[in-house]
Structure formats: structure tokens, C-alpha cells
């Protein structure tokens, strides 16, 4: 009988995860004892936990380690993403502090759920094993279903929560099936091990078919999470119905986590099969770019427009993923960097845009009509400027963060040999500019048809200032951010 040895656990790898999980559990209990009128204290505590977790990561920056038998990874890539998730969660909570009481849905669980969702995202970024990735995905999804339907008893919120749950369960099923197929083909769930097996080309033809079918299903599942066409159709409905801070979280955090896992899977496990998956993913990227941007074109509902626009942005990031898998070292690294830089820019920008949306949102009014932006410049010049900066950044106009994101992605795709794909990307960016600028025009030139009061509070303002400052700093001085993403290396095989 062989002796079971438990390998030593490197807790450093799981430090940030443990902090968030632990703090979320503690907060859940604390929330029980906080009086209803003071419930926002839980929000402050949640932000404090996020800050501590972010700080706890700093000592580990630069290295690469794995633990739990390679199930959990900590490399500079996942560290960078962890910080993105933590920052996004903090801003979303800041946005929610006044949003929740204003809409009468203030419950302590909200903040706890955001923390759990953040932990799920971090698992997706750090997972080195398909089971861990699935675990992270489910943790993220389940909390987000609840958060989406959080605006009880508002029907649209309920509806969107339900839709999200149904389609999410549908997608989750495919992922599990895909994992099973891959295990069947390779006998392993570890990404590095799968990659190793494939690289040695030691698979029988039959196994190979199972493997590819499984890979297709897993791409489907993560594609659902990042709102890749044709698995994107839930996004506009869910974004529209979800409480706006949750929609912001969905559009930023959940998408980033999906990309984190997709890149890990495609590069680490399927890297050697790039010639196989690249054409398929390229086709999906084109579909995503076109459907997202054209769909946004005729939306008069700004929240839906941002949803479609987030689909389009997934298309741009897919260009980076395609480049990330490209053989030949440098091109691949460029692609990973491009995805990270784009995620950073996109996160700042979308958080800013949703922040303005929150400021304009009235209790019980759910139109988000473009007319509400008419004449905003005359009424609230700062708010209008913030929105304009965000929209220009989304459109990729220099000197904003969005420009550098697009620039980097297009450069990476071009260098990886996706010339025609880059051209389609640029063309759709031109289409996208139309619907972004439409709102800018509304804000600066149109006469307001109806006065929409805009309210901001200190927490919302702080979140907006962070987002706008980030957009501009990144736009004017991209060098530090580019430097940061260039250090964010995906440690390919087993912490080498």
C-alpha cells in the first residue's frame, strides 16, 4: 500500500484568495449584527478588505509559484489580473454605497456577494487546473446571478437574473462536458500536463477528436462569460435589468475573469494546437466585432448600448488572445500584454461610463434613454466631461487609455500575422465611434427635452475620479502601464 503524502502547501500562492474568502465569510456574520441603518459600514469594511488583499500581493510580485499540486498558480500575469479585479470590485462597491439605499435594496449580503464574486475571478486567473477553473467560474456565476436579481422586487432585475441563470447554466453544462472529454482524451486536468501531452503529440487519433470536441465546448463556456458571439445574446438583457453597479461589475470583472481563464486554457493547454483553434477563434472574433458594434449602432438605450459595446470590446480582446497563442515567443507575449493592457484600459473606461450612468439614474425610472444626456454639458459640465472622456476612450481616440489598448491589440494582431483581422477591427472601431460620439453630441449640443437631475455622492465621485484620472494618465503616459503589462508573464509550464 502506497503511502499517501500530502505535498507541502505554499500558502503564499493563496494569500490574496484566502484574505478575500475569509473576509467575506467574516463580513457575512458581521452584517448580521450591523443595524439596517448602518449597513453601509459593511461596504466600507469590504473595501478595506479589498485594499488589504491588494496590498498583500505586493511582496510576491515578480515571482512565480504553484501549489496544491499545480492546481493554483501565482505568476505575474495572475497577480496583475488580481489587482484589476480587486480595484474593479472596490470601485463597484463605492458606486453601490449610495445606489443601494437610493433604490431601496440595501442589504449587507450585497457586499459579501461582491467579495465572493471577486474571489471567483481570482480563482479563474490563478487556476492551473480545469477543475479549479470550473470552480471559479461557478463561484463567480452563482454570485452574479444573485447580484443581477438583487433589485427585488423590480421585475426587470428579476427577469435578467433569471435569464442569466438559465443561459449560464446552459453554458456551464457545456463546460463540464468539455472538461470530461478532455480528461478522457488526455487523462489529466492540469493545464500544464495537457499542454505537455499535446506538445509531445502522444495522442491517438480518436483521443485527439475527443480533445478537440472538449476544447470547443470549453471555448464555448468561457466565450459565454466574455460575451463572445454567438454566445453573447444574454448580455444586453442582463446588463439592462441588473442594478447598474452590478452591470458595471459584469461588464468589467466578469469579462476580465473570462479572458483570464480563456487565455490560460488556450495558451497553456492548447498552445501547441494554435493552428487548429486560431481560425475558429478568428471567425468568432469577427462575428463578435460585427455583432457587437452593429448592434450598438441603433440602441437608444444607453445601458443596452454599453452592453453591445462591451461585446464589441470582447472582439478586440480576442484579437489579443489570437496573438497570444501565436508561436514564436515574442508574438505570443505581445498578445498576452495586449489583452492585459486592453483589459486595464477597458476596465477604467467602462467603470467611468457606468458611474455617470449611475449618477443619472432615478429611482423607478428605467429608460436610460439617450435623451437624458441631452444638454448635460450645460447642467453638469464635469459629469458631461467625464462621460465624454469615457466615450472617447471607448472609441479609442487618443490621448486616452482606450487608444493605447486598441493600438497595442492591433499591433499584436498585426505582428502575429492577422492583417485582415486587424483591418476589420479598425473598420468596426470606426463604426463604434459613431454611436459613442452620438452621445457626446447629445451632451454638448442638444437642448434637453426634459431635465434629468443628476446626483453624485462622495463615494461615486471618488470612483469616477479614479476612473477618469486612470484614463487620462494612461492616455498621456502609457509607458508605466505598458511596462507593467510587459512584466506580466504567463508562467507557462509548472512555475518555471
Amino acid at each position, binding site marked *: 500500500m502506497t503511502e499517501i503524502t500530502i505535498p507541502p502547501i505554499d500558502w503564499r500562492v493563496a494569500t490574496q484568495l484566502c484574505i478575500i474568502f475569509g473576509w467575506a465569510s467574516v463580513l457575512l456574520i458581521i452584517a448580521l449584527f450591523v443595524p439596517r441603518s448602518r449597513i453601509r459600514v459593511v461596504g466600507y469594511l469590504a473595501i478595506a478588505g479589498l485594499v488589504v488583499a491588494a496590498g498583500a500581493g505586493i511582496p510576491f510580485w515578480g515571482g512565480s509559484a504553484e501549489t496544491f499540486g499545480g492546481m493554483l498558480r501565482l505568476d505575474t500575469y495572475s497577480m496583475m489580473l488580481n489587482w484589476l479585479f480587486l480595484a474593479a470590485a472596490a470601485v463597484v462597491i463605492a458606486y453601490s454605497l449610495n445606489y443601494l439605499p437610493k433604490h431601496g435594496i440595501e442589504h449587507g449580503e450585497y457586499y459579501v456577494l461582491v467579495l465572493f464574486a471577486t474571489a471567483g475571478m481570482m480563482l479563474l486567473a490563478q487556476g492551473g487546473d480545469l477543475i479549479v477553473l470550473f470552480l471559479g467560474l461557478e463561484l463567480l456565476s452563482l454570485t452574479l446571478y444573485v447580484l443581477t436579481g438583487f433589485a427585488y422586487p423590480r421585475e426587470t432585475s428579476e427577469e435578467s437574473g433569471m435569464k442569466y441563470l438559465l443561459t449560464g447554466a446552459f453554458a456551464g453544462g457545456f463546460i463540464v462536458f468539455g472538461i470530461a472529454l478532455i480528461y478522457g482524451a488526455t487523462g489529466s486536468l492540469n493545464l500544464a500536463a495537457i499542454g505537455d501531452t499535446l506538445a509531445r503529440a502522444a495522442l491517438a487519433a480518436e483521443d485527439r477528436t475527443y480533445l*478537440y*470536441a472538449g476544447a470547443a465546448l470549453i471555448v*464555448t463556456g468561457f466565450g459565454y462569460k466574455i460575451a463572445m458571439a454567438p454566445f453573447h445574446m*444574454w448580455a444586453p438583457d442582463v446588463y439592462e435589468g441588473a442594478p447598474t453597479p452590478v452591470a458595471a461589475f459584469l461588464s468589467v470583472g466578469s469579462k476580465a475573469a473570462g479572458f483570464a481563464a480563456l487565455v490560460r486554457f488556450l495558451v497553456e493547454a492548447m498552445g501547441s494546437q494554435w493552428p487548429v483553434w486560431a481560425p475558429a477563434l478568428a471567425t468568432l472574433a469577427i462575428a463578435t466585432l460585427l455583432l457587437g458594434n*452593429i448592434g450598438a449602432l*441603433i440602441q437608444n438605450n444607453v445601458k443596452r448600448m454599453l452592453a453591445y459595446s462591451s461585446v464589441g470590446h470582447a472582439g478586440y480582446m480576442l484579437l489579443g488572445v489570437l496573438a497570444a497563442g501565436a508561436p514564436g515567443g515574442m508574438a505570443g507575449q505581445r498578445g498576452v500584454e495586449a489583452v492585459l493592457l486592453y483589459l486595464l484600459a477597458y476596465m477604467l473606461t467602462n467603470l467611468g461610463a457606468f458611474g455617470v450612468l449611475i449618477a443619472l439614474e432615478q429611482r423607478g425610472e428605467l429608460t436610460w434613454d439617450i435623451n437624458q444626456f441631452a444638454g448635460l454639458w450645460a447642467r453638469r459640465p464635469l459629469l458631461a466631461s467625464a462621460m465624454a472622456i469615457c466615450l472617447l476612450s471607448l472609441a479609442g481616440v487618443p490621448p486616452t487609455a482606450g487608444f493605447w489598448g486598441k493600438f497595442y491589440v492591433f499591433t499584436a494582431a498585426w505582428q502575429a500575422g492577422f492583417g485582415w483581422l486587424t483591418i476589420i477591427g479598425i473598420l468596426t472601431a470606426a463604426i463604434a465611434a459613431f454611436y459613442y460620439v452620438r452621445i457626446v453630441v447629445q451632451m454638448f449640443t442638444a437642448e434637453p427635452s426634459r431635465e434629468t437631475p443628476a446626483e453624485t455622492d462622495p463615494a461615486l465621485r471618488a470612483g469616477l475620479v479614479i476612473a477618469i484620472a486612470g484614463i487620462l494618465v494612461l492616455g498621456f503616459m502609457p509607458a508605466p502601464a505598458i511596462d507593467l503589462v510587459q512584466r506580466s508573464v504567463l508562467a507557462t509550464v509548472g512555475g518555471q
Partner: protein
Amino acid sequence: MDWIIWLIPAFPLLGFVLNALVVRQERQAGILASAMVGLSFATTIAAMATLEGTPAEARRLTWTLWEWISIDDFRVAFGLLFDPLTAVMALLVTGVGGLIHVYAIGYMHGDARPVRFFAYMNLFVFAMLMLVMADNLLLLFLGWEGVGLCSFLLIGHYFDRRTVQPGINPSDAAVKAFVVNRIGDAALLAALFAIFTNFGTLSFYPNPQLGLTGYLDQAIIVAGQSIDFGAFGQLPLMTAITLLMLVAVAGKSAQLPLYTWLPDAMAGPTPVSALIHAATMVTSGVYLIVRNAALFDQPASAAPWVLVIGVVTAFIGATAAVAQLDIKRVLAYSTISQLGFMVAAVGMGAYVAGMFHLLTHGLFKALLFLAAGSVIHGIGDQQDMRRMGGLRTTLPTTFRLYAIGALALGGIFPLAGFWSKDEIIAHAWFDARSPLAAIVLVLTSAITAFYMGRQTGMVFYGRPRDPALHPHESGPLMRWPMIILAAGAIPGGLINFPGLHWLNSYLRPVLQEPEVIYTLGMGVLATITTLLSAGTAYLGWKTYAHDLELRIRVGKDDPALRYLGDLWRGMEIGWGLDWLYQRAFVRPYRAAADFFSDAFDRQGIDGVLVGGAARSMNWLAGGLRAAQTGYVRTYALAFLLGVIMLVAYFTLR
């Protein structure tokens, strides 16, 4: 101290900047602009004094501010040059320019946009000074384009009026001047390219500060080369360069076949006509040839063509001036004709004579324009000579000044025009051995005297024909500049008086032209010319002040039409060149432009590409919206289809 030459253009530039950005009041703008040109004039005098201290074999001041362009071998200095040739030009530009600025304070009083006017006037003086002071051809070209721009801006000063007298649209006139000048500008650019490729430099003279060579003293070295046009044969390099320069001159100095813009340029305010379209800008073509005399002196140069163009233009312009009914158009055609004299002179190699006439003409033509402006101003903005008549009693000062200008222009002894014009004619007869040119020029001179006599008679003699006019004399701000110009136009011949030839000596360091030895034959020729001119002047005056006076009617044709018929009509329309261009170029071009604008722009780009793209996108988006039903089952179906396709691709690949 050489750097002070930069102050000469700097003052008007400062005036422009201040007027454009700071000044808001009419009076301040006028005073500022005039003061800046005055300072520039004073600096020019100071620079001339400094110039006297330099040795005769290197009589020039240069100062390079910085290296403008440095791309491999293509190096151009941002530097100014001040030699005797530049000095006389700068003196004319700032001296006459300053007087016209002062005059304009009075003339433009009550105008809708006086500050803008003075700003542009200063900008013009700046550009003109850059043109004459540039130490290389590229910087000269900058000034050349600058004066063209200012000309455009100032001709269109009344852009808000549909028409100004005599029925010209100011905006159209401005555009016409600009477009016609572009032909010449393009030719100058081509000449510039040819010079750079063959000489490797654009500097006129060696530039010690940057170590550049000059192209003018290398003319001999490359004189024998040719440019190969392949199937079109070969053209000697010198012919090509000088021919291109001649086209540039034809544009800027209103010579055949490009002179048609100048009569229309009279749509600008009268001070503009005096400064830009008589005294300075239009003479820059003559300056260009004189500056590049080293090239035109080469045997293969296009100098004979320059002579032909000049002589023919002089004759054509003079004949057209005879039949004009607008007081400023007479002077405009007269300017074309007189520029023809100058171009003919430089075409013969008589550069000093050309410069001499340029200077005297600058004085008396400016005087004539200002006096014409005084008439126009005095009778309530009327330019039609048929409405005038008998103004010598009501505008006595203006009349006397106008008469001085007319006699000077007519070449009557002993006024300035006589001396300078006679020198050109004498050169044609005796030195160039071109009797035909000389005879045509003498004839032109006689016609010149005739139309000036006619104009003086029509405007100042006879009976007042329009009772609606209430003439009043101009104020001192307008009168004094004219008096000073008249005081210059009377003894102006002294600057190159036979036997003294000061101008000749002064320009010798630049042009090395020998002194003309005066002979008895020259005296005889001059006597014949001036007697002929005096006769025709009297004839013109008598005809229009007495014989035909009663038949001049407002709104009716000139009485001479009865005697000359179609010939007169031809002269009236400037020999129909405008008519020809309108049909040969403008209308076909417009038609083609309309076609392309409609077929390509409106229907193709706007309609199919822009509109079509927008429509197709909207259509697509509408389709997508229909697919977004809101039902989860639809979404799941799309999802499933996607999965099936993806799995199929991966497994069946």
C-alpha cells in the same frame, strides 16, 4: 550691426500681430500700422548707411537667423540679404508704403473692417520685404506667396458686397487674382527645383554663416547643360530655368498672357491698388529677373522672350487703357503697360533702366492711384469717369497732383517718367539694336500720353455731368502723402540723370552694368518721343475736354466708339483675353468639376459609400434587433447553433 536688417521686416510683422490680436479701434490700427512701416523705413535708411561702410566688391549685409531646412544636401538658410538692389526695393516698399498707410487712415475712415485692413496691409509689407530681402530663392518664394496671399485678402476686402464698381464681384476678383497667380507660382517652384538639382543650392550668394555656396556666380559653370525631356527633345538648362521664371513674372507682374487678373484686382480699396497693384507687388517679377540677372545674361537664356513679352504687353496694355471708362481701370491697364516697359528693359539686359523705371513708376503711379482715390472719395465713391467732369474747380489740390502724376506717366519733360522711359527706349534703339521694339515702345509712350490726357480731360475738365455729386476736397491725412509723392515724382529723374547716373553707380556692385554714354542721337530720340507724347496728350485732352465733351453721357458708350467701332470694343474689353479664358478654361473646368462633384462626390462617395454604409449598417442592426427577441429559448438556440458549428469544426476539421 548687420542684424538690424532683420528689424526691417520685423516691424511690419509686429504691426500685423498687434493689429490682428490686440488692437480693436480704427484710429489706433491706422496709426500703429503707419508707425511700423515708418520705423521700417527709418531702419532701411540706417541699414543703407551701414551698407556704405562695406567694401565695394562685397557690398552686402547678410544675417542668417537659423538654418531653416537641413535634409542631407538640401540646406536652406533663414537669412536676409541687404545689398544695393535690395536697398532701393526696400526703400520703395517702406517709403511709398508708409505714405499709402497714412493716406489709408483718411481713406478707410468709417470702413466696416478697418483693423483687419491695416493688419493685412502690414502683413503685405512684411511679405514684400521678405521677398526683396531673402538671401535664397526659397525664402523669396515664401515672400512671393505671402504677397499673393495678402493681395487675395485685400482685393476681397469688400467680400460682403455683391459688386463694386465697375460691376466686379470682389470675392471673384480675389479668387481670380489668386488662381491666375498660381500658374506663375507653379512655374517659379519648378524653376526653383531645376536650380537646386543643377546647382545644389538655393542661395543667391555664398552664405558664410552656414557655409553654403551661391548659385548666381556658378551660372557660367552649368550654362552648357541641358534638361532631357525624353521624347520631347532637349532644352538647354538656362532656357528652361529662365523661361519658367518668365512665366512666374508674367503671373506676378501681370504680363501677357496672364495679366487678366490685374484690372479686376481694382475691386480692392484704392490704397491697396496703389500699394500692391501699382507700386510694389506687381514689380516683384521685375525684381526677380534683375536679381537673377546672372542667369538671364547667359547666351541660352530666354531673355529675348522676356523682351517680346514686355514690349507686346506694354502696347496691348496701353491700347486697352485708352478705352476704359472706370478711373481705376485706366490706371490698372496703364500699370500693365508700364510693367511691360520694365520687363522689356530687363529683357534687353538694361537692368538699371528697368529698376529706374520701377522706382519712378512706383512714385507717380502711387500718386495717380491716391489722387484717383481722392477723387473717388471726394465725389461719394463714384469711379465712373462719365459721371465726373469739371472737377478741377471743386477739387483743385487733387487736380494739380493728378496732373503731375499724369504728366510724369505720360513721359513729359522734365518729369520723372520722361527720364526713366526714355532710357528704356534709348537702350532698345541704340544698345539692343532692336528698332522694332523701340518703335513699338515709342508708340506705346504716345498712346500712354493720349489716355492720360483723355482721363484728365474727362475727369477734371468740361462740365459737371452728374448733378447728384457734391465734390469735396480730401483732408490733410490724404493730401499730404500725395503732395510728398508728387514732390518725388517731379524730380524723380534725378536718381539716374544722364551724366550723373547715381542709380547706375549705386547698383554697380550688384549688376556691374557700365555707364551709358549719352550721345546726340539719344537726345534727338528723346526730343522726338517727348514731343510726340506731348502732342498726343494734348490731343487726348482736347478731344475729351472740348470736342467730344458734350457727347459723353452717363451710362452711354464712349463717343469715340462711333469712329473706331469694333476696334474700340476690343480695347474696352482688354482684347478679349478674359472672354477667351472664360470659354477655353473656366467653363470646361467648371463643367468637369460639376460632373465629378456630382458623379463621384455626391452620388459615389456621399451616396453609395457614406449613405450606403450608414443605410446598410442600420439595416443590419435592425435585423439583429429582430433576432434579440428577449426569449431565453432564442438565445439558447443561437448558443446551441454556435456550439454545434464550433464542435463540428474542431472534430471534423
